[in-house]
């Protein structure tokens, strides 16, 4: 009988293979733990643009519920698009610094000349692509959504070609259009291209003298009138989805619905290429001396000016065509909006200074000494307005473990309430209801409300909410009143849902500090100090952790 004895070499080979096989199996058994990585931006230009953006558009980040979604049929592009900072490039063109970022989209959006049902549109076969441009000129920032819509004759069914076209680079045979919109959805300007050359400017709505003109040509959704203006109906297809809070790149949409909006764009003038290089020409320039600036001082009032449309890099030095001079002028009317941004690091000095004020320190110590079963508190009232002397308002309790009622005044007799302090016996950070007292007072306090713009601005810049616990003291100030008011509006609509979200976020993350910062985003500054200390440190969230914000 034949014996199947293995030769030593074969046996050793089998052993080696088995060990390798086992290693493979063990390795395959281990599951990866994919953690969300926080954005790490090293380019200072991109960081500056990001800082400006977050200060200017903080409202887009606040009020996150367990899921986040935009409102039905929102035309506020700011709620849909945000810069994908990890996928951005910074460069200098002429005297401007430009950051071009891919657009992070809550849902999707596409321009098309198709008129199919909104829920039948295939976004993966869209012939448009939108990115965001953050442009800085002379310390003035502006942001634009740039939508490149390619003509089918250029794409030839290859939708991947769209990505060849960016602000700086455009295919030599690109035929289509470029649209610029501000983030409130306002059309800024646009240009048509034929074979990589700019041909004509685009106008939204009726073109000059385009009303009631004889239609000499009508093909599909394009109509050409006797003035040579060609009107094109562009359908914007929108996909609106919900996302989970920890899906910052909006990669897992659910509960999507679809709708469309339609806009007529007119191109007027000769359709022969008028010049231009690889990109479209600038119709206007970013205004000098206007625009919003990066906040760098305490309580700086920033004038936000809607900048002129973005200039386009002319590329190869070819003279761009003259800007359109006939109405409607594509240059937008400048609008000025007052807002206040308060940098937490810069404000730290004044926060510490106020906490060190002898009257305030004495009140805080007295509140802390009473940290027991019930809440204690008092108002921080200035004796004069403006001024820095505080009245010694009495520390008291309502005899409740979770409520304290303030007596807020704005007069020379009882003082000018510029802060509120109370204890949390359980050690939790300020709650949303605590924080909203600061805006409640502004709305309901008749004396403050009618005291004039100077007083209201003073209040907005200086009001603070202090919560004292046995292990920490917290101070909240308002970083961005626009964002804070937006948050308050959501709270007013349904304060139960707002608070339920806060409670659940705190319980899930085992931190009321986290919940507060997470829900209010950059609308507030949150400071913390050890008991009795006047060295307050601003807090922030980084990589799902509450950390001390590093200040210079």
């Amino acid at each position, binding site marked *: 009988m034949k014996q199947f004895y293995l030769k030593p070499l074969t046996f050793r080979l089998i052993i080696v293979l088995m060990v390798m096989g086992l290693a493979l199996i063990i390795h395959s058994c281990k599951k990866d733990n994919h953690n969300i990585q926080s954005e790490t931006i090293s380019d200072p230009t991109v960081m500056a643009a990001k800082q400006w953006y977050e200060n200017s558009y903080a409202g887009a980040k606040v009020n996150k519920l367990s899921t986040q979604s935009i409102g039905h049929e929102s035309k506020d592009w700011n709620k849909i698009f945000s810069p994908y900072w990890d996928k951005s490039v910074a460069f200098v063109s002429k005297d401007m610094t430009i950051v071009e970022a891919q657009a992070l989209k809550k849902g999707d959006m596409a321009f098309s000349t198709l008129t199919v049902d909104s829920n039948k549109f295939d976004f993966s076969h869209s012939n448009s692509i939108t990115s965001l441009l953050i442009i800085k000129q002379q310390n003035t920032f502006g942001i634009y959504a740039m939508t490149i819509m390619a003509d089918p004759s250029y794409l030839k069914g290859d939708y991947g070609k769209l990505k060849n076209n960016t602000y700086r680079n455009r295919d030599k045979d690109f035929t289509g259009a470029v649209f610029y919109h501000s983030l409130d959805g306002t059309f800024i300007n646009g240009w048509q291209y034929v074979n990589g050359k700019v041909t004509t400017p685009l106008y939204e709505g009726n073109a000059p003298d385009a009303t009631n003109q004889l239609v000499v040509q009508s093909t599909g959704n394009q109509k050409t009138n006797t003035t040579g203006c060609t009107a094109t109906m562009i359908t914007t297809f929108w996909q609106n989805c919900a996302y989970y809070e920890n899906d910052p790149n909006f990669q897992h949409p659910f509960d999507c619905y679809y709708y469309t909006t339609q806009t007529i764009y007119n191109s007027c003038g000769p359709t022969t290429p008028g010049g231009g290089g690889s990109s479209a020409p600038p119709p206007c320039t970013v205004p000098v001396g206007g625009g919003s600036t990066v906040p760098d001082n305490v309580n700086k009032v920033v004038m936000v000016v809607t900048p002129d449309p973005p200039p386009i890099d002319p590329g190869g030095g070819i003279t761009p065509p003259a800007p359109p001079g006939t109405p409607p002028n594509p240059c937008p009317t400048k609008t000025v909006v007052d807002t206040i941004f308060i940098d937490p690091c810069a404000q730290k000095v004044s926060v510490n200074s106020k906490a060190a004020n002898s009257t305030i320190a004495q009140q805080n110590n007295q509140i802390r000494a009473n940290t027991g079963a019930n809440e204690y508190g008092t108002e921080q009232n200035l004796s004069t307005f403006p001024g820095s002397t505080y009245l010694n308002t009495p520390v008291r309790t309502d005899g409740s473990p979770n409520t304290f009622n303030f007596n807020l005044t704005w007069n020379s007799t009882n003082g000018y309430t510029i802060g509120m302090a109370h204890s949390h016996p359980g050690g939790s950070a300020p709650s949303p209801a605590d924080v909203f007292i600061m805006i409640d007072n502004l709305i309901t306090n008749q004396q403050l409300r009618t005291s004039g713009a100077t007083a209201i601005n003073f209040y907005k810049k200086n009001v603070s909410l202090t919560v004292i616990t046995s292990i920490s003291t917290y101070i909240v100030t308002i970083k961005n009143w626009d964002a804070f008011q937006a948050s308050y509006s959501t709270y007013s609509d349904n304060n139960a849902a707002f608070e339920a979200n806060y409670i*659940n976020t705190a*319980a899930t993350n*085992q931190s009321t500090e986290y919940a507060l910062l997470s829900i209010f985003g950059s609308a507030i500054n949150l400071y913390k100090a050890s008991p009795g200390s006047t060295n307050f440190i601003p807090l922030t969230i980084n990589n799902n952790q509450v950390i001390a914000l590093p200040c210079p």
Partner: protein
Amino acid sequence: MKRIIFLIAGLVFSISCMSQQPNLSSVVSIKLPDKAEKLNRTQSSSYLKENFKKSKVPLDKENIYIKDGVIISFWDLSVSGDNKRSLQNSKAELLEVLKIDKNLKVNEANIITINHNQFLVINYQEGDEVYLRFYSDYKNNKNISGLIQFKKPDEDKAKGLLDTLLKTIQFKN
């Protein structure tokens, strides 16, 4: 003979490896209760919508399971050293914040020790829907937290599942 034993041992090891539970946490080793079924996000969302009036289960978390009508979820947490709190302080903090919602009723909150690990367990309910939250103590500024959601009649079953789960937890080095 030796070769046969070696082959059998290898086979057994391979099978045991294939049947092992995946790495559910980067902070602790943890074993699921027998026959607990994993739910993906869509399944979790659907089940919770159909069976509960409200849910506090964080659907973005990876570990969501169901066993006998009880939802079990858990996730890793980490904290910066400056903001670390003792379980006693966390208990006071969370009980204070739960009081904000007048519809929530806290049934009990205890700090328990299982296998030398300390856990804060809070039992609270809204109507007939009950939540068992647990938080382990920190090791190297990391800990594990979880939520078990169930209907009031399933309370004993849910508490048993929590006990089973916590007994399997061992911090990784």
